């Protein structure tokens, strides 16, 4: 059709994108600290979020190398639940309004 252009399809995380539309967001951030061991952090991500090892390791490395990783985008209640779950494992996790 003349006069139209085809836009590239953005790469989005479908699951996260749907959640964002459903409910205004909060994010759970895990922050780097010098004391929690890397295999432990990976394990906690697998247990708390049910992630596979590869995804858990990716977020663990993000925490380690970039100082933080956003691990959840969700409603206040769910985000708070995850912060509590991570705190039970003594990870440095906080809840922030999504900017």
């Amino acid at each position, binding site marked *: 059709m003349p006069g139209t252009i085809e836009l590239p399809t953005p790469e989005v995380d479908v699951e996260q994108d749907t959640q964002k539309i459903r409910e205004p967001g909060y994010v759970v951030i895990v922050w780097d600290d010098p004391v929690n061991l890397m295999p*432990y952090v990976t*394990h906690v991500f697998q247990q708390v979020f049910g992630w596979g090892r590869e995804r858990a390791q990716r977020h663990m490395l993000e925490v380690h190398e970039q100082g933080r990783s956003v691990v959840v985008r969700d409603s206040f209640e769910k985000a708070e639940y995850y*912060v509590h779950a991570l705190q039970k494992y003594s990870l440095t996790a906080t809840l922030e*309004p999504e900017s």
Partner: protein
Amino acid sequence: MRLHQRDDEATSWFLASGERNLLLTLFSRPTEPRRRVRLSRTSEALEEQCHSDLAGELETHRAEVRSRLVMLLGVASPIQMTIQTPTGPRDDSGWILRLTPEDREFLLQALNELRLGAWEQLGRPDPPELPDNLAPTSPDILHWWNLEISSRFQGRLLSEEFAE
């Protein structure tokens, strides 16, 4: 501590007598007071709300976890077996600690709590590595020991149970 057996419901761990006594001691005594953790870094309102929701819950959880672990260590079964070593067979006596997946998580949490408590008592060293010049009379020795010993148990649990 080493993985002894696994079935559909739980894993069994061999603990030498000294290891069982050590864990019982660690989980029976009062924990070091922990610094208040922030739950939000950008919003004071969120910080207050989350903190009031969480206040007490973590302490209760940690106390329950420790008492559960003390109970599990208390009902561990004695075992005597012969193991093969590079220098030949050796009689080994100890205890079998059976952990469901939930109990295994409790043990990991409790060990990490010990690590963090000790680390905070040491002034949050970065990296958390034993200094070369630590005097034998230093009051920090017990904290370094707690940090080190809980790291070893934690590492053993993770590396043996989840080895690929």
